[in-house]
């Protein structure tokens, strides 16, 4: 591609032909305010917030759609440009309800940000504002407030270009323009949550997240969605060991700017139904226990059996590191060569050619690379140590072969919690560091958002202590001899 040279605010810029002025400015760190432009969507050029001046051009240019030209001299912060932005802001705010105190977008709203940056004058509009419908449930967990909408059409484009469906549209025109679905129809695509992300104002908010937390209280941690083998890059937003929402994070090779709703709302398993204390199950009675008691009990259970005949069962949704540790423990401490894995296998997994894969496990490639075998291959063992969960079929298999579950490393409540002799709590993906290998073979890192909840400990920690207990017992035996 030929290169084009131009000047933006006195800075020389060299970019490929076809680049827009807004993108060219970003390459030298000049941010041009905008609403309708989104780097992941087609250009609309309707909000007029990105107007800039260029020498020899009779009128200001919308920098989001204007391509660079050789020798152009662009100015993005002249008095005239600033007054244009102020005018655009004034128009956008004429019918805006100014309900920031009750608006969920407050704190991440471009109307607020740009008002403080470019406008900062009281409204001159004293007439009655146009009133429209509020609190409309569009479907798919998206709420619409028509009065806050600035008609940038980002949400329409997300539905068209990401989900490939034409479900949203603008109806009417002028100051009566509103975003809507076809009357009587609901927003129903599996990527609808992205409309909330791209909405630059408070028009579209998430039914799941709204009114739960002011955004400025939330901490953000980069992570990877464990919902399927795509491994969309995400930001976990949380406070006090509770996840409030997941947002997609840009990775042009995996998920671009998007994620599916299944993944987006799939963080219940972090917040709810958690196993947070160790348990010892004896003859149908389940008792909570401190981690030392549980480990001592487990070690003595293990010693009663032939260690090398014990099978370990990893999980296709655990990190490579956890699986490796489990494997090393089996090899070195148990001297066992039985490493199997379980996986989440919902009966009718939804998948498409966009992001969602039919494999609802984050790390199938990881278990494959480490040489774990499917649990259905298990023929015999004196007992199993199970990570994460088992399917109903796999539990039946263990029953049929009369193999006891000696230990269950649990994130969430499961029938295994009563079946296993010892239950040890482990952290969810939001509380540990590690890697998942996605369907494309990319190894992606997850970072802990907060400390392991309750008394849960990393699998590595449990196994190291268990190893020490087994070894010290072994030594005692030797001494006794």
């Amino acid at each position, binding site marked *: 591609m030929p290169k084009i040279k131009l000047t933006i605010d006195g800075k020389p810029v060299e970019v490929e032909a076809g680049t827009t002025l807004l993108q060219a400015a970003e390459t030298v760190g000049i941010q041009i305010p905008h609403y309708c432009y989104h780097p992941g969507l087609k250009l609309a050029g309707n909000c007029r917030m990105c107007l800039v001046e260029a020498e020899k051009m009779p009128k200001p240019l919308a920098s989001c759609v204007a391509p660079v030209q050789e020798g152009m001299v662009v100015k993005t912060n002249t008095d005239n440009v600033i007054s244009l932005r102020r005018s655009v802001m004034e128009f956008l705010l004429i019918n805006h309800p100014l309900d920031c105190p009750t608006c969920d977008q407050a704190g991440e709203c471009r109307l607020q940000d740009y008002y403080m940056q470019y406008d900062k004058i009281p409204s001159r509009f004293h007439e009655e504002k146009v009133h429209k419908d509020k609190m409309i449930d569009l479907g798919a967990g998206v709420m619409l407030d028509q009065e806050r909408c600035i008609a940038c059409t980002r949400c329409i484009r997300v539905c068209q270009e990401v989900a490939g*469906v*034409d*479900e*949203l*549209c*603008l*109806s*009417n*025109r002028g100051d009566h323009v509103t975003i*809507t*679905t*076809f*009357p*009587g*129809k609901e927003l129903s695509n599996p990527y609808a949550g992205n409309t909330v992300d791209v909405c630059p104002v408070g028009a579209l908010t998430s039914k799941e997240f709204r009114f739960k937390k002011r955004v400025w209280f939330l901490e953000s941690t980069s992570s990877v969605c464990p919902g399927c083998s795509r491994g969309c890059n995400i930001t976990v937003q949380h406070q006090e060991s509770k996840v409030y929402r997941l947002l997609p994070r840009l990775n042009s090779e995996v998920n671009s700017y998007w994620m599916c709703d299944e993944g987006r709302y799939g963080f219940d398993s972090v917040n709810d139904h958690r196993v947070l204390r160790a348990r010892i199950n004896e003859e149908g009675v389940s008792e909570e226990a401190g981690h030392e008691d549980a480990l001592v009990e487990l070690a003595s259970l293990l010693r009663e059996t032939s260690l090398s005949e014990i099978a370990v069962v990893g999980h296709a949704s655990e990190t490579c590191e956890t699986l490796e540790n489990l494997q090393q423990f089996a090899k070195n401490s148990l001297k066992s060569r039985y490493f199997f894995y379980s996986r989440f296998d919902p009966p009718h997994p939804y998948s498409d050619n966009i992001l969602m894969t039919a494999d609802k496990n984050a790390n199938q490639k990881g278990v494959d690379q480490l040489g774990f075998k499917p649990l259905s291959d298990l023929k015999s063992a004196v007992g199993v140590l199970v990570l994460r969960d088992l399917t109903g079929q796999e539990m039946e298999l263990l029953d049929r072969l009369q193999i006891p579950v000696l230990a269950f490393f649990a994130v969430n409540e499961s029938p295994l919690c009563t079946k296993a002799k010892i239950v040890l709590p482990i952290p969810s993906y939001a509380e540990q560091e590690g890697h998942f290998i996605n369907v494309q073979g990319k190894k992606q890192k997850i970072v802990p958002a907060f400390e392991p909840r309750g008394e849960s400990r990393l699998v590595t920690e449990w196994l190291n202590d268990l190893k020490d207990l087994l070894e010290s017992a072994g030594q005692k035996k030797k001494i006794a001899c």
Partner: protein
Amino acid sequence: MIEFSTQTKKKLEECLTHYPTRQAALLPTLWLAQEEFGTVTLEVMEYVAGLLDISPAHVYSVATFYTMFHLKPVGKYHLQVCRTLSCALMGGERILDHLKKRLGIEEGEVTPNGKFSLCAVECLASCGTAPAMMINEKYYENLDVQKVEKILDELK
């Protein structure tokens, strides 16, 4: 289920030959639909969307953008009074007020017998003969209250 008559279907086929894609023929198809069904209801929009292989949402967007598509039923005689500058200067507002009183309806309403409906519209491009109004497809120009009375009397 609604459906175009054979005659309208023929018109549509002919119309489609003027456009590069089926989607491009949306406006003329909506006109045909309005001619045939009188009102562009949601059912009509979905039918048109099916004919042209586009989404109902897109049809809804277009049909609500243009004010000359009737989303609600109008009277046998649809009175459209110009309210833009030239007509306003020449007494267009008085014409509108008189019509409201005479027919006993407000803008956007239909008389109980379904004969007349009234609305104010933007420039009819008839500034030279202001004030002007359209009744269905026909222009009435250089209006005054007496003229309007006479026109209404003649409409059966």
